[in-house]
């Protein structure tokens, strides 16, 4: 085998290298200089993110176990970019004294899960897929329990690892059924042998359950709110953006390639999941006062919307899903960034605690409003286009009723997003959160989010690019 082929795995290899280098650096730095690890790790990661954008070869290696295409590279770049923003947002938090002994842990664990996700995206067989899945999941449990002295954080870690174990078990059961039915674990071999029989249907359902857990679709979503609330905010944003985004990518890829023969069978299933996910998540979100729980349910609802793109199967469906995730990364990280900044400065985590924020921190309030408007899908910000393309994809397949339900849900969601806006701008507060200045890294992260929210919406070229690479991938 030509060693040059390893260039196809450059994302995974570079990330592994970063993780190892950070580990070595950790050993090499003295106790009192640990804080220097933060800019070092972020810088290194930024470099790797940048390298990821350099165009490179595509193809498959390891006999089809690992595949790389323009689309998968683009997906990995989106994830890298999201993680970079999260790192920047976490900078201030990591500098706090209680975290000084576990700085490198944060980076190494996060990067490890990212490696797992990258492998999942590039998987060409179910073995690599499953190993990637576990590599992605186990470190996240560690991250969720990162504030190990806080009981809520430990609880989040335990809940996450136990629920993941259950979902992985079911997923593996499903994969073994598929293996039994088709006699192969390679995507390329399985795809033509997939037919609508009971065994494959059962295997497929179990697969969907496992992925539904990662994407937090109803009824697999229960862990989400508890874990999001308990985990440190920078881990929550990772879970809600990167982890979910990656799962959506891989779910879409497998559905569109491996299970393309039984499209007519899985469409009603996705339909049902979409309706339940959007509606229930919205109903739950209405009553939340904890901002992290609120964003958790909001992100579940967004996952329901993504299913509209999935059901639009085909090129437009794929494009709209990838585009939406791209928008969602910037939008949601914008919101989470504000929450993190406020949490770092004042420990406030409730919506009512945000009352009167505009008087003291107008810029953060405006940014939060922008992000929430984008999440609600109000033109002309990016979130609107994201949703619009998802709806277009579903409507293109003739699912008008589903689109109607989705738009109704989007209107309901507007109500609760406006509740937060109202708290910040209108509600009176004797003692609003005092004015504070965010760290420079946080500012940079937030500026990136704002730029993303505007640019992605208005630059028509991005959508067209995604469409062209999706076309390439699916044919």
């Amino acid at each position, binding site marked *: 085998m030509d060693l040059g082929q390893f260039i196809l795995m450059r994302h995974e290899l570079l990330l592994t290298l970063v993780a190892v280098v950070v580990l070595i650096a950790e050993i090499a730095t003295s106790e009192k200089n640990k804080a220097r690890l933060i800019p070092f790790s972020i810088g290194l990661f930024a470099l790797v993110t940048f390298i990821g954008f350099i165009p490179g070869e595509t193809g498959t290696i390891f006999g089809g176990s690992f595949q790389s295409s323009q689309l998968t590279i683009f997906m990995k770049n989106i994830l890298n970019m999201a993680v970079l923003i999260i790192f920047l947002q976490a900078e201030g938090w990591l500098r706090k004294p209680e975290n000084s002994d576990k700085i490198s842990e944060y980076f190494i664990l996060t990067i490890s899960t990212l490696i797992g996700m990258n492998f999942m995206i590039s998987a060409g067989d179910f073995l690599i897929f499953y190993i990637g899945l576990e590599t992605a999941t186990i470190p996240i449990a560690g991250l969720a329990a990162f504030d190990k002295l806080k009981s809520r954080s430990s609880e989040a870690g335990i*809940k996450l690892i*136990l*629920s993941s174990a*259950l*979902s992985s078990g079911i997923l593996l059961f499903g994969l073994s059924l598929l293996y039994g039915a088709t006699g192969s674990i390679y995507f390329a071999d399985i795809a033509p042998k997939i037919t*609508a*029989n*009971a065994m494959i*249907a*059962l295997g*497929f*359902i*179990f697969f*969907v*359950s496992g992925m539904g*857990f990662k994407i937090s679709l*109803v*009824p*697999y979503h*229960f*862990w989400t*709110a*508890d874990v999001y609330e308990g985990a440190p905010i920078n881990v929550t944003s990772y879970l809600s953006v990167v982890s979910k985004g990656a799962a959506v990518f891989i779910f879409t890829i497998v559905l569109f390639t491996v299970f393309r023969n039984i499209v007519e*069978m899985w469409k*009603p*299933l996705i339909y*049902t999941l979409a309706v339940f996910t959007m509606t229930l998540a919205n*109903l*739950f979100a*209405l*009553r939340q006062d904890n901002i992290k729980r609120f964003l958790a349910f909001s992100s579940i609802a967004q996952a329901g919307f993504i299913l509209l793109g999935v059901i639009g199967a085909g090129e*437009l469906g794929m494009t709209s899903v990838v585009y939406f995730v791209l928008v969602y990364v910037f939008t949601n990280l914008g919101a989470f960034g504000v929450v993190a900044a406020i949490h770092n400065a004042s420990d406030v985590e409730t919506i009512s605690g945000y009352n009167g924020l505009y008087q003291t921190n107008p810029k953060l309030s405006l940014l939060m409003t922008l992000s929430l*408007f984008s999440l609600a899908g*109000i*033109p*002309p910000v990016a979130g*609107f286009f994201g949703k*619009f*393309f998802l*709806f*277009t994809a579903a*409507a*293109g397949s003739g699912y*008008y009723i589903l*689109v*109607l339900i989705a*738009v*109704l849900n989007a*209107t*309901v969601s*507007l*109500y609760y997003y*406006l509740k937060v806006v*109202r708290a910040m701008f*209108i509600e009176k507060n004797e003692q609003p959160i005092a004015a504070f200045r965010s760290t420079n890294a946080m500012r940079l992260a937030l500026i990136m989010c704002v730029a993303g929210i505007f640019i992605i919406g208005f630059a*028509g*070229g991005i*959508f*067209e690019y995604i*469409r062209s690479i999706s076309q390439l991938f699916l044919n």
Partner: protein
Amino acid sequence: MAGYTYTVFILMIPLVIFLITGLMGMKWKPIVSGVIGTAGMGISFVLSLLAAASYFFGGTHGAEGFQTIIPFEITWLRLTESLIIKMGILLDPISVMMLVVVTTVSFMVHLYSLGYMKGEGGFARFYAFLALFTFSMLGLVIATNIFQMYIFWELVGVSSYLLIGFYYQKPSAVAASKKAFIVTRFADLGFLIGILILSFVTGTFDFGKLTSPDGAIFAGAASLSFMGISALTWAMTLIFIGGAGKSAMFPLHIWLPDAMEGPTPVSALIHAATMVVAGIFLVARMFPVIHFQAPASQEIIAFVGGFTSLFAAVIAITQYDIKRVLAFSTLSQLGYMMLALGVSGYGGEEGLGFMASMFHLFTHAMFKALLFLGAGSIIHAVHSNYMYDMGGLRKYLPITHITFLIACLTIAGIPPFSGFFSKDEILVAALNHNKLLFAVEYLVAGLTAFYMFRLYFNVFWGKDRHYHHTPHESPLTMTIPLVFLAVASIFAGFIPFHHLVTSDKMGFDTEMHLAVAIPSVLIGLLGIALAWILYKKESAIPEKLALRWGILYTATYNKFYFDEIYLFVARNIIFKYISRPVAWFDRHIVDGFMVGIAVVTEKISFQIKGMQSGQLQHYAFIFVAGTLALALSMVYFLN
């Protein structure tokens, strides 16, 4: 074609003003933002007039009627190979007319606000929002395709939300802005789905292709149907729901009266002349599609319009808040315009309704903006919105009084004021189509004259109230717009709309329909007379006379107790058994239903909260149960 490139500036100036005043306004003295905004809008206004003059009278009228000109367009993104989203400027008779309407009223409101909003906190912010709103509204009317229109449509919603909620310290204003936003959003979902259906049926967003009367693009669409109704009827009805939300048609009208919480100049801009006519404009824009492809939708439009006009006029009679009277009056007049579109045919005289609707849109914009600005001047003088705090104001506010009277005569349809001409055309169009709607509109004409003059007499005549200080006429910045709009209200009726703005862009000849016009004027006069009898009597002179002449006068003064009888009939029968119940129905049932949806949603949300117990075993159970349920249903589905 290239000659119209400057129209880009009409649109860009407000945007630039918004950016400048929004970003820098806080650092300047407040008045600077106001002056910049007003001057900029003045330029936009002049450019629009130029564009209209050269468009309507500059030889764009060919054998095919007025040409559609697209001076500027960019491709923005390709959704599929054929479905392309563009952004651009489209000039045709209705969009050019709307440019004039929007910039005129916006300019007047900018000027007026210099006086009205003086000393208010957030002056610069107010001007920034005004500019943003104007930009969005202009973008909406010049859209070359329905997608662009939708984007600006939503922007209009957002910026009006900001303007209605301008007094954000006032809880009622905040509630109103939220209600307006959510109700219109609710309607917009219809619009969005309508667009999706339409674009998939036809494969295009472009108005040029969609509204071509030959309908070639719909050839393949006729067979598509859903639940027994054709896809195009669905699409058009859904799009109309979007329009009905913005134009506050029953039952989506509930946001408009509450939206009066915003500053009065905002009401003049948004709720008289621009945002609320967006729905009318949308229907007019899509008119050929609706008329030829979805006649059932057109029928719905006619009846919704007719019903709204009657319903709102009846409620207007009972209101004491002068802005609310005007709000319901706006609803009623919008109903007129919608009705006219609903009964119109296409081409030549057949298209009378279309022309009449646009004509009335134009005249209504002028006189209703005048009414709102006049109301603002009154409120400015007496610091109250309520009629019972007003009376005898004609002495103190001479200019406001005269201009307000002109506006009242205009809306009552008294010749030679412009409202007479446009209303007459609508009545004729209704008569040609549907006798019932025609009768309803006669009735509404009478009611309109009545409630407007009830307002007029209550405010300007009658006894003086105990004012905190002597009311005084408003400053020049406020009276100049009043005078300008009054002049426009008088003369707009002489614009030959039937040669300029018609359904097929061709122009046709029409004449006065005396058989329709004379009764309608008489009905208007009857309404005015009734209001005069009922509401003008509280004046000082009759009282003095009454003392001197004793019983004889009392009998005469009381017109032999006729007005008591009138009053009895009016108060005890009409008010009690018709208007009040209708108003009650509106407040409690229609509004209550919408609120009810919200309450029920909240209730459900509360009920299901128990599912999220925090117990992991509970979660695992639902996880497995959900999977099994899906598996079972899938197996069932396979068999």
